[in-house]
C-alpha cells in the first residue's frame, strides 16, 4: 500500500481522538455543572458561618459509610393547606434535616407523607430560598439585600406615614393558606395594636361547600378518615383523592378489598377513577341536576328511608316536589350523562348500603355550587346514609378546629357590626377589583403573608393592576414568587421546621405539633418575631404586647402556645412532641347522635337561612352557572371550552413546584385537551397553544388526552408566571352563590394553536 494513504489514515485517527476528547470534556463539564450547581450555590449564597457551617461539616452528598449512628428524631406534622396534614418523623443531624420517616400514630396518614412532604429535605435548603430582607432596587425588577434594621425602619416609616395621612385602614393585610398554626393569629393582633387595617372576607377554597353543609347538616364534620373502609359504595364526586388526598386511597383500597364499589364522578379520567368501576363524566357545573335526577328516581320508586326522613329531615315534601321536575331524560340533556347511567347511579345508591359520598372542592367553585352541594347531601339524607359507619357526607371535618372562637365558614364572613378598627371589605374572590375600588380611605399599601395572590386568586391581570396601583408592598415569603416579585420589600419567611406551632386539620381529627427542629438559616425570622420587632420599633412596650405578640425567644413562642392549649388539659406540648392527639370531643362517626345543629334541629333540605342569608332558593334547586355553554349567551359561542384548573399531586397550590425533586415529575405546564377538540383546532400533541378569554391568556404546550370529557380542557393550578403562567389569567373574580367563595371554575375559554 502506498504511504500517502496511511498518512491520511493516521491523520484521520488523530483528529478523531481530539474530537473525542472535546466532546467528553463538553458533556462531562455540563453534567458536572448541572449536578453540583445546587449544592455549591447553597454554600456560596449562605454565609456558612451564619448557619453554623452546617453544610461544610455535614458534607451533604457524602457516601453512606460515614453514617452517624443515632440522629435525633422529632415528631412533626405538615402544616400545608391539604386534606392529609400528615404526621411524620424527621431526622436531624448536626442541625440539618436529613431524613423523613412515617409516623404511624396518625391513623389517617400512617405510611408517611406524600412526595411534597419528602421534598422538604430540598425545600429548606433550596439555593433559591430567601434568607435576608430584600428591597427592590429603584427602577428595576431586581432586589438587593438590606439589613433587618433598615427593613424595619422602612416599614415603620411607611406604615406610620400612611396611618397619619390616610388612616390605618389604607393598609390591606392579606393572608393566604400557605401554612397553618396558632401563631398565625399574631399578625392580626399586631394590626389591631397598630390601630387597624383593612382585610379580606370570604375564602378561595371551600366556602360554598362549607356553607351548604352547615345549612343542611348544621355542622362541618364527617366520619373519621379510616371509616371509609367500612363503606360498600363510595362515590368520589369531583374528588381525585389519589392526587390530592393520597392517604385516603389506603382506606378506599381497603374498602375495595372488602368488596365495596367505587364510583367516580369527574369530567376527567383521573388517577382515582382508574381504580373505579364506573366513571361518570358530567358537564362541569351541572352536578346539581344530576343529583336531583337521582333523587327523583329514588323518590319515585319508593326507594327512600321514610323512617329516617320523618325523624331527621326537614322539607322533604317540598324537595320531592321540586326534584320531580328533573326526569332522567331532562338531566341527561343538561349533564351529558346518558339516562342509563343516571339510572345506574340511582340503582347503586338504592341497592348498596352503606353509602359514603365524598365531594371534592373543585365542584363547589361555581356560581351555582352551594345549591349543587346541598342537592348531593340530600341524596344521603333521603336514603338515611348519615350518622352510621361507612355512610355519610365527606366534605370537611372541622372537629379539630377547637381553637377557633368562630368556626369556618362563619369566620369568613364580614362581621355583622364592623368594630371600627379593622375594615373587612375586600372580597378574596374579587381581590383585584375590590382593591382598586376601595374608598375612604383608598388602599395605599398591602402586606402579604402566607399567600401568593398574584397567581392563586382569580383574575390575575386585575390583581397585578391593583398591586401596581399601590404605594408600598411588603411580602413575607420563602421564595421569589410572582407576588414577591411585586413587592417593594420582601421579608424572609420561616419553614415549618424553624418555629414550633400547633396545627389542626380538616380531614382527620388530630391536633398536632410541628416542632422547631432547626435554626432558621440566614437571617430568616418567624413572622411572630417580625411583628415583635416592628411593634418595638413603633414604640410599644412589652406590657402592651403581652399575650398578643410573643417575644423573640423560643420560650416566648412556647408559652404563647401553652396559653392557647390551656383550655384543653388533655393537650400538652410534651405529649404532642411525641404523638398526634385526637381532638377532644371527637366523634368518630359524625352525627351518630343524630343531633343536627340547624335552626330546626333536623337535616334541612328546605333552608330558611339559605334564603335569608344568601337570597337563595330555600330548596337546592339547579340553575346554570354564570358561564355555561348551554345558556346560549355570546360568551359560550366565543369561548366554548370549560377550563378545569384542578390540583395536582406535584404541588399544594403554588408551593413545591419550584423544587428539583418535584420538577422531575412536571417541568412545565401543559394543557390537557381531548383529541376531538384538538383536531377541530388543528392542534396536535406537544404543539404550543394559546388559552384565552376576555380576562386574559396564557401560552403553554398541549397534551392530547383521551380521558378528558370533550368540551373541557384542563391545566393544574399553581404554576408560576415565571415558569409558564398561571391559570388565573383566565379565571373570573366572582363569588360563589353561598359562602363568599371564589367561583374559579365558571371559566369558559377558547384554545388556539400558536
Amino acid at each position, binding site marked *: 500500500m502506498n504511504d500517502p*494513504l496511511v498518512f491520511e489514515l493516521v491523520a484521520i485517527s488523530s483528529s478523531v481522538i481530539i474530537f473525542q476528547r472535546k466532546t467528553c470534556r463538553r458533556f462531562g463539564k455540563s*453534567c458536572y455543572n448541572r449536578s453540583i450547581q445546587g449544592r455549591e450555590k447553597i454554600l456560596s449564597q449562605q454565609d456558612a458561618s451564619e448557619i453554623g457551617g452546617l453544610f461544610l461539616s455535614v458534607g451533604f452528598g457524602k457516601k453512606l459509610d460515614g453514617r452517624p449512628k443515632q440522629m435525633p428524631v422529632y415528631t412533626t406534622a405538615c402544616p400545608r393547606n391539604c386534606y392529609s396534614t400528615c404526621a411524620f418523623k424527621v431526622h436531624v443531624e448536626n442541625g440539618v434535616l436529613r431524613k423523613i420517616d412515617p409516623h404511624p400514630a396518625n391513623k389517617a396518614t400512617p405510611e*408517611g407523607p406524600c412526595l411534597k412532604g419528602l421534598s422538604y429535605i430540598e425545600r429548606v435548603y433550596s439555593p433559591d430560598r430567601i434568607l435576608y430582607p430584600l428591597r427592590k432596587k429603584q427602577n428595576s425588577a431586581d432586589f438587593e439585600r438590606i439589613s433587618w434594621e433598615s427593613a424595619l425602619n422602612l416599614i415603620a416609616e411607611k406604615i406610620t406615614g400612611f396611618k397619619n395621612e390616610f388612616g390605618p385602614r389604607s393598609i390591606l393585610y392579606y393572608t393566604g393558606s400557605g401554612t397553618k398554626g396558632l401563631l398565625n393569629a399574631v399578625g392580626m393582633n399586631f394590626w389591631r395594636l397598630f390601630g387597624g387595617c383593612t382585610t379580606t372576607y370570604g375564602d378561595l377554597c371551600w366556602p360554598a361547600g362549607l356553607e351548604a353543609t352547615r345549612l343542611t347538616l348544621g355542622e362541618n364534620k364527617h366520619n373519621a378518615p379510616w371509616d371509609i373502609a367500612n363503606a360498600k359504595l363510595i362515590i368520589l364526586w369531583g374528588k381525585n383523592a389519589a392526587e390530592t388526598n393520597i392517604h385516603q386511597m389506603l382506606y378506599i383500597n381497603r374498602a375495595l378489598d372488602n368488596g365495596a364499589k367505587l364510583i367516580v364522578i369527574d369530567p376527567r379520567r383521573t388517577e382515582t377513577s382508574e381504580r373505579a368501576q364506573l366513571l361518570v363524566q358530567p358537564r362541569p357545573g351541572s352536578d346539581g341536576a344530576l343529583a336531583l335526577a337521582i333523587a327523583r328516581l329514588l323518590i319515585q320508586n319508593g326507594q327512600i328511608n321514610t323512617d329516617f326522613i320523618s325523624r331527621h329531615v326537614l322539607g322533604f315534601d317540598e324537595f320531592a316536589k321540586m326534584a320531580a321536575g328533573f326526569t332522567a331524560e331532562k338531566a341527561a340533556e343538561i349533564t351529558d350523562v346518558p339516562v342509563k347511567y343516571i339510572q345506574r347511579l340511582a340503582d347503586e345508591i338504592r341497592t348498596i348500603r352503606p353509602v359514603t359520598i365524598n365531594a371534592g372542592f373543585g365542584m363547589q367553585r361555581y356560581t351555582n355550587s352551594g345549591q349543587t352541594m346541598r342537592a348531593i347531601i340530600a341524596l344521603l339524607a333521603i336514603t338515611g346514609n348519615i350518622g352510621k359507619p361507612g355512610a355519610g357526607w365527606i366534605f370537611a371535618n372541622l372537629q379539630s378546629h377547637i381553637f377557633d372562637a368562630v368556626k369556618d365558614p362563619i369566620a369568613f364572613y364580614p362581621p355583622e357590626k364592623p368594630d371600627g378598627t379593622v375594615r373587612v371589605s375586600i372580597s378574596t374572590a374579587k381581590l383585584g377589583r375590590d382593591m382598586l375600588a376601595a374608598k375612604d380611605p383608598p388602599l395605599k399599601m398591602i402586606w402579604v403573608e402566607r399567600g401568593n395572590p398574584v397567581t392563586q386568586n382569580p383574575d390575575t391581570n386585575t390583581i397585578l393592576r391593583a398591586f401596581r396601583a399601590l404605594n408600598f408592598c411588603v411580602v413575607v415569603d420563602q421564595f421569589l414568587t410572582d407576588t414577591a416579585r411585586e413587592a417593594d420589600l420582601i421579608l424572609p419567611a420561616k419553614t415549618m421546621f424553624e418555629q414550633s406551632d400547633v396545627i389542626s386539620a380538616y380531614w382527620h381529627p388530630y391536633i398536632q405539633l410541628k416542632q422547631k427542629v432547626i435554626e432558621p438559616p440566614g437571617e430568616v425570622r418567624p413572622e411572630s418575631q417580625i411583628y415583635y420587632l416592628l411593634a418595638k420599633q413603633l414604640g410599644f412596650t412589652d406590657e402592651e404586647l403581652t399575650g398578643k405578640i410573643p417575644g423573640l425567644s423560643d420560650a416566648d413562642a412556647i408559652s404563647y402556645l401553652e396559653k392557647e392549649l390551656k383550655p384543653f388539659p388533655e393537650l400538652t406540648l410534651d405529649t404532642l412532641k411525641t404523638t398526634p392527639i385526637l381532638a377532644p370531643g371527637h366523634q368518630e362517626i359524625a352525627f351518630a347522635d343524630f343531633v343536627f345543629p340547624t335552626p330546626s334541629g333536623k337535616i334541612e333540605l328546605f333552608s330558611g337561612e339559605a334564603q335569608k342569608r344568601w337570597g337563595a332558593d330555600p330548596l337546592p334547586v339547579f340553575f346554570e352557572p354564570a358561564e355555561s355553554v348551554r345558556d346560549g349567551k355570546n360568551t359560550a359561542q366565543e369561548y366554548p371550552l370549560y377550563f378545569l384548573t384542578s390540583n395536582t399531586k406535584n404541588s399544594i397550590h403554588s408551593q413545591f413546584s419550584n423544587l428539583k425533586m418535584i420538577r422531575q415529575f412536571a417541568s412545565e405546564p401543559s394543557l390537557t385537551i381531548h383529541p376531538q377538540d384538538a383536531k377541530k383546532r388543528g392542534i396536535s400533541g406537544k404543539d404550543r397553544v394559546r388559552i384565552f378569554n376576555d380576562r386574559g391568556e396564557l401560552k403553554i404546550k398541549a397534551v392530547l388526552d383521551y*380521558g378528558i370529557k370533550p368540551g373541557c380542557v384542563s391545566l393544574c393550578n399553581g404554576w408560576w408566571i415565571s415558569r409558564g403562567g398561571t391559570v388565573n389569567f383566565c379565571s373570573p373574580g366572582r363569588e360563589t352563590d353561598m359562602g363568599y367563595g371564589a367561583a374559579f371554575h365558571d371559566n369558559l375559554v377558547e384554545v388556539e394553536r400558536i
Partner: protein
Amino acid sequence: MLNNRVNQKSFIFDTNKCTGCGACILACSIENELEFGASRRRVFTFNEAHYPALPRFHLSLACNHCLDPPCLKYCPARAYHKDEQTGAVILDQDKCIGCKYCSWACPYDAPQFNPLSGLMEKCTFCEHRLAENIEPACVELCPTTALRFGDYGSEKNSTGVPGFTKTEIKPAIQLIPLQENRTVPEFSLQPAEAIQKKIPQSSPVSKIRLQSEWSLILFTLLTAILVGWISAAVVYGSRIDPVQFAGFGAGTLLISLGHLGKKSRAYRTILNWRHSWLSREISLFPLFLFLSAVFMLRIAEGHILKSFVLLSGVVLLVAMDKVYETVSFSRLRLHSAGTVLTGFLFFAYFAAQQNIFISVLFLKLVLYAGRKFNVELYRSKIHPLASVTRIIAGFFLPPVLFHYFSPGSAVFIFLFITTGELLDRCEFFLEMNIPTPQNQIVTDMLND
C-alpha cells in the same frame, strides 16, 4: 449462578395500589443522598394518554436483584456480587470501571451511569438498612403500601404485568396485576369508534445515544480496519509499515479508553474473561497487536505465526460482535455492520482483491437491505439520508473507483467505504434492541 443458600428477598409491587405519586423515587434519593432529582428508582406509566380501551397503571421499578443477573454475569471488571443474606445484587463502586456494559445487559435499565463519578450506580436494596432490620426507604415511605418488601416467592398473586419484560434472568420481583374490579372503569361517555384504537404516545427509543457511544463505534470500526490491514499483509504480502500500524493501533486503544468512566481502572476490563465477551475482546486486542508486531518486525516467521496473527484478528472481531449480540437481545446474528464482515471488506481493500472486495460488498448490501426492509422484524428505523449515503458511498462508488483503480483513487475508496461502514455501524447502534421498561410498555400497549 444462583446459590441455593441465598435467602432471596424481593420488592413486592401492587399495581392496584400505586397511584404513580413518586414518593418512592424521592425516598431513594434522600436515603442514598443522591442529587436532588436523581434516583435509583423510577416509575413508568402504562397508557399515559388514557386510551379508553386500556387500563392505566404504574410500574415502580428499581433493581429486581435477579437470580441470574446479567449485569453480574457480563460485567468485565467483576464489580458485581450477589449478597448471600438478601440476594441483593451489589455493585462494588471500588471495582466499577464505568463501561456501562451492565446497563446494556439489564432489560430493566437498573444500573445508571453517574457522569460525576464516572461509575455506574444502582439500587442496593438499602443493604445498610436491611442490616439494621429496616425495610428499604422506598418501601417504608410508599404512602399507599403499593410497594412492599418480603421473601421472594411469598406473594401468591404475583404474575407478569404488561410493560414488564419477561426474560430468563429470573428477576426477583413480585408484581401483583390489576384485579378484575380495578382495571378499566366503565365510562358514562362512550368514546367514538375512531378513538377506540390504541396508539402509544411515543415510539420505542434506543437507550443508546450516539453522542455517548462515539468511542465504541470508532473503536470497533478501527479494529476491523486494523485486522483487515494486517491480514492483507499476511495473506497477500501487501506492504505494511510497522510504525504506522503501531501508531494506528495505539490510537485505537486510546479511543477504547475514552468509553470508560474510570480510565485509571482500565486494567480491570479483562478480569471476567470467563464470562464476558467484553473481557475477551479487550484481552485479545493487545495479543493481536503483539502478534502483528512480531510478524511485521520479522522477529519470527513462518506459517504458524501467520496463522496465529490471522486467528487472533478473526477471533478478536468475533468477540467484538459477540459483545453486542449478547446484550442486544436482538435477532441480528449476521448483519451488514458486523465487524467480521467489515474486517473482511478492508482485507480485500488493502489486498487490492477486486473480486473479493465486490463479493463482500454485495453480501453486505443484501444484508443491509434485508435489515431495512424488515423493519418490523429487526425493529430497525429508517434514516433515509443516512441510508442513501450509506448505499451510495459504501456500496456503489467503491466498486466503480476500484474498476478504474489508480494510486490516487485509493484514498477515496478508503474514505467511501469507511463512511459507509461508519454510518452502518451508527445505525446498528441505534437499532440495537435493548429492552427498557419504556419500550416494553409501548410494545405491550400495541399488543394488548
